[in-house]
């Protein structure tokens, strides 16, 4: 055995070969064992990947998070496409107290300057959270990471906050619903809640089409929840909501709001309601409801007058939600019932006429101021007349005539006829808070009821019901005498629905009643002209007034000297385009003293003004003047223009 470099220098027992074999043997064994272990690791990997045990499976859930992408809510538009409420994405500020830059005072100062708010108001929100976090940290509980600081900001505020760039101050996107509808027709348009879901009014009613479908996103996240990537098929794009064209006409709504407010102020009333309907289609064109704050001038709701104090009772049930937002308050046109009084006579009158129980030219002997019914109940008229035709009974609003005729019609014929007019049942609009009104149940319907109902007592209605029912008289052509289906969406948005109707009375009865009510309007107009009220008279209208005493829930009888004045009118006479119902809640004591509390005095001017302005806006040809009168007026205007000196234009050369 030779001795070579690197080999063993001294030949041991057994020689270098033996030592080398031993080394080789050792190396081979070691390598083999290591190799087996390595191969065994592959087995372990295969086991973990292909057949993980049950305990491990619990930890194998996908690292996925869900996020939703807000679908833009559809706009609420008026019937002509004008925006009432629309959505946009705004930004608001929140603070993560755990990351707010210190010193806190300095950060709050910067933030308050950027937002344009008091530092103290920010401190009130943030410092308590910081203090709580100290306690939570000590207790090992999760810390507060979100403190909302503002609602959605204006653009300049956002820029200012971004400019100062304070650690721990962040933005978050929030949908904002805004537009003229927030104030205009607020009670009807409604509003959305914090989650941008319809809460009141049309926003709630049309939630389904407006909302759309939010997009859904499932993404793979890292350990801090940050998105990494999307797996195939894990994204569904948002489906925007549809715009809804409401039946509201923003301009008519504006007119209605202005005039009801004016009417309520002029009458020193506690409140007022107004409804404008297109009788042809049943579309609600405008609706308003105002309540005046008469704190201190009236006895609060639920209280009785104290000796020596004010005696005027609050007649409108308080609505705390209305103080929060106009849209949040109840819509009294749907929810608050009232006795219509004489406004109800056209409905009873037309049913009696339709049944042949009275002829339009039949003479009723209504002599004296009082008439005693067959069951001994005295009935009085405001304007006593010895006799009058059935037609005049309506135009004169004779309680005695109505009472006499009502004794001829079977109870249930009258009651069912009124049901056909839509009273005592919801309008079908589906507005939240709507009440069906009240008609005495058949079992309790008595002679007394029959008489009372004939002049609008012992019946409770909503202003919307009256507007719908009165449309029966205002529909044109063959549709006259039919009841329209009320609708809150523009007629052309749902083709076909505008044609729906229910015949209540024959065409000719509706027209006769309409002509009888022309006299009512003419009388009302004469009063307005005598008082030189600020009213125009371009259109021939027909209508009916009503004055009812006020009953307060939970109390028996009526409140003395407090009334509900109401008026319903439509026009133009021969081709009515609009029906307007006005209710003035409790005209003031002075109006009562001057007998201006009646519907013809307090509510009729509102109807006249609204119809005059709205019909002009709609481009309806005035019909009050004859063709000859119009020609003469035109001629006078031309002469006046010709006589007037031409002024020099200061800007011309």
């Amino acid at each position, binding site marked *: 055995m030779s001795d070579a470099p690197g080999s063993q220098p001294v030949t041991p027992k057994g020689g270098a070969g033996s030592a080398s074999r031993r*080394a080789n043997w*050792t190396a081979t064994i070691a390598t083999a064992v290591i190799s087996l272990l390595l191969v065994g690791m592959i087995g372990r990997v295969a086991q973990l990947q292909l057949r993980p045990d049950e305990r491990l499976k619990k930890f194998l859930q996908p690292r996925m998070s869900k996020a939703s992408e807000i679908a833009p809510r559809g706009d609420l538009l008026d019937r002509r496409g004008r925006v009432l409420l629309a959505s946009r994405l705004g930004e608001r500020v929140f603070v993560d107290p755990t990351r707010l830059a210190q010193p806190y005072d300095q950060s709050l100062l910067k933030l308050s300057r950027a937002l344009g708010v008091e530092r103290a108001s920010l401190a009130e929100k943030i410092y308590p959270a910081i203090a709580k976090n100290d306690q939570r940290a000590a207790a090992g509980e999760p810390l507060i990471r979100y403190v909302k600081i503002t609602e959605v900001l204006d653009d300049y505020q956002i820029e200012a906050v971004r400019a100062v760039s304070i650690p721990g101050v962040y933005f978050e996107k929030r949908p904002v619903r805004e537009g003229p509808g927030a104030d205009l027709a607020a009670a009807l348009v409604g509003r959305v809640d914090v989650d941008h879901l319809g809460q009141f009014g049309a926003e709630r009613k049309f939630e389904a089409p407006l909302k759309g479908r939010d997009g859904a996103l499932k993404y793979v996240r890292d350990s801090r929840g*940050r998105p990494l990537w999307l797996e195939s098929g894990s994204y569904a794009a948002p489906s925007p909501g549809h715009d809804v064209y409401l039946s509201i006409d923003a301009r008519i709504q504006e007119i209605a709001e202005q005039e009801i407010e004016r009417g309520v102020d002029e009458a020193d009333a506690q409140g007022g309601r107004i409804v404008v309907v297109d009788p042809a289609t049943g579309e609600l064109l405008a609706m308003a409801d105002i309540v005046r704050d008469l704190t201190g001038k009236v006895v609060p709701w639920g209280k009785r007058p104290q000796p020596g104090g004010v005696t005027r009772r609050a007649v409108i049930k308080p609505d705390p939600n209305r103080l929060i937002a106009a849209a949040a308050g109840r819509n009294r046109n749907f929810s608050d019932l009232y006795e219509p009084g004489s406004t109800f006579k056209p409905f009873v009158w037309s049913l009696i006429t339709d049944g042949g129980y009275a002829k339009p030219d039949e003479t009723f002997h209504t002599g004296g101021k009082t008439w005693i019914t067959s069951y001994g109940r005295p009935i009085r008229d405001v304007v006593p007349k010895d006799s009058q035709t059935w037609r005049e009974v309506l135009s004169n609003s004779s309680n005695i005539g109505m009472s006499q005729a009502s004794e001829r019609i079977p109870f249930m014929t009258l009651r069912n006829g009124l049901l056909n007019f839509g009273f005592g049942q919801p309008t079908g609009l589906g507005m939240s808070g709507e009440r069906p009104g009240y008609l005495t149940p058949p079992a309790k319907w008595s002679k007394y009821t029959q008489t009372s109902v004939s002049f609008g007592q012992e019946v409770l209605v909503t202003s919307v019901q009256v507007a719908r029912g009165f449309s029966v008289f205002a529909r044109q052509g063959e549709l006259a005498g039919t009841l329209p289906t009320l609708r809150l969406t523009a007629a052309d948005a749902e083709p076909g629905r505008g044609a729906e109707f229910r015949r209540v009375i024959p065409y000719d009865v509706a027209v006769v009643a309409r002509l009888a009510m022309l006299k009512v309007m003419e009388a009302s107009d004469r009063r307005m002209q005598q008082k030189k009220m600020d009213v125009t008279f371009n259109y021939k209208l027909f209508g009916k007034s009503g004055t009812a005493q006020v009953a307060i829930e939970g109390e028996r009888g009526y409140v003395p000297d407090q009334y509900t004045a109401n008026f319903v009118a439509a026009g133009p006479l021969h081709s009515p385009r609009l029906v307007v119902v006005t209710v003035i809640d409790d005209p003031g004591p002075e109006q009562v003293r001057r007998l201006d509390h009646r519907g013809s005095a307090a509510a009729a001017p509102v109807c006249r003004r609204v119809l005059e302005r709205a019909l002009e806006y709609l481009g309806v040809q005035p019909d009050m003047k004859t063709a000859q009168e119009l020609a003469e007026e035109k001629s006078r205007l031309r002469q006046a223009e010709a006589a007037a000196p031409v002024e020099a234009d200061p800007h011309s050369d």
Partner: protein
Amino acid sequence: MLRAGHVIGLAAFALLCLGVVMVQSALMSVGAGAVTVDRILLSKSAAFLAAAAIAMVVASRLPVASILDARRMGPPRWRLGSPVHPLLLLASGALLGLLLLVYVPGLGREVNGSRRWVHLPGGQQFQPSEVAKWGVLLVLAGYCAWQGAERMRSFWRLLPGLGLAGALAALVIKEDLGTGALMLAASAIILAAGGGRIWQMLILAPPAVAGIVYAILSSPYRKERILAFLDPYQNPETTGYHMIQSMVAIAHGEGWGRGLGFGLQKFGYLPEDETDFLFAIICEELGIAGASVVVALYLAILWAGLAIVRRAPHGAPKLLGIGVLATFGLQAVINLAVVTCLAPTKGIALPLLSSGGTGWVLTAASLGVLMAMDRAYPDTAPSRGLAATSPPLATAPS
């Protein structure tokens, strides 16, 4: 013709390349941008790969037969198996001193409860245990060759070698149990291959085991690791978290893997994903196939290295080669056992894959020594039996 040395070189290079790619994949994070070829080539890992490749090439060109010739290990009076060799004593002292550097104020710093790193001026740092891990192989290989196989059969000649290995390992175990245990195991294999009797070594095993047990019991975090290993689901959010997340990463592979770059656990779920637990990411992204490729490359290196050491004549190079193979293979086994939760969690890197400059360079250099041996002792024998006993250099004049 492809020689064993070439196989080692190619397999090592393949592992390094895979390591660079997988380390980059593991380093992916939200907001860090896309991993591009440019970015990979300009990465720190690519620089370490280049350094490791150079180290391997340089080491492969070394004349190992001459450098490690036992007859040149000092003046004649130092030869013939005197128990203490000044050069080896010096090297041993240097290794001990190196390991003690971690305790020198200003140089050694405590990180995560242990002192493993020495910080050099200029921001550089290295692990003395990483150097000692390979250095002890050199010293023990030299010692065994110098003593000769026959003398190593004596307990008293074995004892210095064991003592040195024990002392070095004890110092390492204090801060890094895994590396210390690895050093002990590799040292034992060298001593056994160098002629040491196994039963004599076993006599000293109880104190060594006792030392290891003491090291475990004296350290709360080691005890926790042992308990977590026994039942990781006991505290899945704390002590068992690392093991469970490693198993989750592997299980996410579901056979075929999620695809390169599409692993999830690297995004903050699995700690140490680009270093000690890189194999879990490989399994998650490349599946069983990827894991098999890694193991196949390790096996290729091991068996090619075995072929080389088998045909080398008995001496320091052969023993060093065995030590290199043992260290390389055992380190891979320990790492894979830890990652697959067959062993308690320990900080030990996967050779040539786990991110780390010192580890890559020293491991590559060590494999380069095997390649150098391949060149020094070419396989020219007609049969396996002659290859071991009749190397060409054995007849060359010294």
